[in-house]
């Protein structure tokens, strides 16, 4: 159950830990020519955790687990987030509610993410069948999220400073075939290419190559290499600009993570998203969790 929670936390924007960044909350940043690898990666994390908005509402998110033979399972959820900008040390709070499948329907998760990069999230879980809120502890960083191809740190705990970064160059992205629809995405898109090496060693990957879209500052593609230098996993993200007014909000509309060893992949589709809708902090309490039924 705990892993389900952690997974759900990740699914939408791979939400997670506040970053040790000097970037200001509620501002949108884009990478520019001449920036260092560290500066570009700070922007990437700023976007990844959507710290550019005061709040966020995702009215529908669908997750597919696809096995090599095509067998597929599906989950759906809704989510709200409020970015507190460091008030009382809290970076942001999240509430996620599962709506499908029925066996997990109504499960709700409240998370507080702190500014302090050394601090784990606080997480509360509402289990509708037990009519009970459980405080749960953090999972291991290299654990898989509820059977997905994402690890815990990829979705919620990795932060700026967990790796060292080297700018390899600026290249046009060769394109990615999004298996869910068969479309080829981002072919010819100008990108910064950065090599990220984990500070932990040994770790489940020895390095990853990160492709950052110059237009959005989002990492559109990660290549993971094992200790022998062999590519074993890829992670694709589709970023788009949401522009309800004058502000450009970079948002992740689709993710696809593929384990090249097993052939299993996880697809996430974020639909009906909105930023700065005026959410109250009182929406992020245990009282609100208990409203969830089923």
């Amino acid at each position, binding site marked *: 159950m*705990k*892993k389900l929670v952690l997974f759900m936390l990740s699914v939408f924007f791979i939400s997670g830990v506040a970053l040790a960044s000097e970037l200001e909350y509620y501002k949108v940043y884009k990478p520019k020519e001449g920036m260092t690898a560290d500066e570009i990666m700070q922007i990437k994390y700023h976007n990844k955790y959507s710290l550019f908005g005061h709040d966020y509402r995702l009215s529908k998110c669908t997750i597919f*687990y696809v*096995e090599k033979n095509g067998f597929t*399972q*599906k*989950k759906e959820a809704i989510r709200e987030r409020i970015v507190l900008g460091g008030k*009382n*040390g*809290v970076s942001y709070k999240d509430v996620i509610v599962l709506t*499908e*499948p*029925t*066996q997990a*329907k109504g499960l709700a998760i409240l998370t*507080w993410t*702190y500014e*302090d990069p*050394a*601090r*784990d*999230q*606080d*997480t*509360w879980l509402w289990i509708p*069948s*037990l*009519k*009970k809120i*459980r*405080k*749960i*502890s*953090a*999972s*291991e960083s*290299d*654990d*898989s999220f*509820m*059977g*997905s191809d994402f690890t815990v740190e990829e979705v919620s705990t990795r932060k700026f400073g967990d790796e060292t970064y080297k700018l390899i160059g600026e290249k046009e992205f060769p394109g990615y075939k999004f298996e869910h629809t068969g479309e080829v995405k981002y072919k010819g898109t100008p990108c910064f290419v950065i090599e990220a090496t984990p500070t932990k060693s040994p770790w489940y990957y020895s390095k990853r190559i990160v492709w950052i879209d110059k237009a959005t500052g989002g990492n559109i593609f990660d290549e993971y290499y094992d200790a022998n230098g062999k590519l074993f996993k890829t992670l694709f993200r589709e970023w788009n600009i949401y522009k309800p007014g004058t502000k450009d909000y970079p948002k992740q509309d689709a993710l696809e993570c593929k384990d090249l060893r097993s052939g*299993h992949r996880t697809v996430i589709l974020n639909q009906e998203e909105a930023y700065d809708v005026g959410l*109250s*902090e*009182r929406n992020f*309490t*245990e*009282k609100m969790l*208990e*409203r969830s*039924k*089923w």
Partner: protein
Amino acid sequence: MRLKVLLGLIISFVIIGVAGLARAEVIGNFVDKINPFEKLELAGYLKNETAFGIAKENDGWQKFKNVFDLKGNYKLNDSVEFYTDINYWYDSVLEIDDRYDSISKKDKSVLRRPEDKYILKEFYVDVLTDAVDLRAGKQYVVWGTTDGVRILDLVNPLDLREWTLKEFSDLRIPLWMLKAESSITKNGGLQLLVIPDYEPNYYPPAGAPFALRSTVIGAESAASPFVSVRTIDNKPERTLEDSKIGLRWRDVVETGMFSGLEYTLNYLHTYDSAATYYVSTAPGFPVPIKLTRNAEQIEVWGGSFAKSITKGLVGDFGKGWTLRGEFAYIANGAMNYGTDRNIVSTVDVDQYNYALGFDKTFLTNWQFSTQFIQMIAKSKEDFDDNKYTLLFGPTRGPLDEIENMITLKVSTDFIHERLKPECLILYGDDNDWRLAPKISFEVNDNLIVAAGLNFFFGKETQMNGQFDDSDQVFLETKYSW
């Protein structure tokens, strides 16, 4: 009759099997199609629960239960919602196994299917506002942070027909009540419960698979030709004057060294759902015995907490642990005292119960959850403690003034978390054990199968030991849509 039962079994397996093989959306889409109300959301499940006793000289069917459940939520607007859960089941085990032939027809009818009043499992209206959430109707309220053991969780009574082998969600008996949950601080608020309804715990009759030892002893006594037992149930009326009242303050600390600490302070004015026995005799033959089963009016004071260690105490030491606990002081209760099997009389008792829990994930995906529970019962009246002890209600065996228990649950997962093994171990002092390994497999989004074992060890006077000859293997198949 046996042929009908066999047919029933086959049909139930076929229904669940076919449903399980159906694509995930088929039944859900069908339900959506026939649902005429746009604001009405429906979900439900079919479930088969089968258990077979494996203890020597007591092997045989313990359960063959088919469950139908349908939930509906009608959202009138953003502030008002109506919710209901209809749950019906039928346990064919009484027809399958002739070991249960001695159970009376009346008792069988309660064991075989739910009483009419319990078919409506939940039925309430929600009125949701920023300041107060009101929930009026038949519902459950759960207090506390402990798993599987009741310390503060005393609002709803329990259905103990399968002892506590099932999830607590399936054990609780719903009550009609009003629940008001207010927001006072940013993260905290006061909960008020007004409960005019009363139900006692349900205990299976003698002869049923998990009949309590105390029930069996009572039945044996009543059957004696030397006594004539008259039983009087003394329980509260379902009136406003006899209403139970609950109050809970809950908050989460947001700043300082206790940031992230959740705590509650609780008070419950209620009636004990487990009756206390008062026995009186008079001269005559057969000896007339008057047995009064009294629902004691008790006061519960307590609190709970939960805190995750999100930052290492020294370096990363301690990080990742979640600590939780709860405490309850139960005043004005009563217990029997006497010797094993024999009630001498009844005394007023205060109880001090607490639990501490520790949870942590190790080795990537192995979750460990352990609890220490201590229950202290202090008699407020004198009795000859050289000859007598307090008696443990479920077994009518001697009860120590201090009872200790430790639980450990270890769980993990494989195959993209579709395969989930777990093992629960309960240990009570006096060498009382329950060992419960279980494995579940998610066939697809709608179908889950689970299998497991329940082993009991210990003296017949102890909580688990009384079921030493009820070890079982079980299989569950659940199709939800």
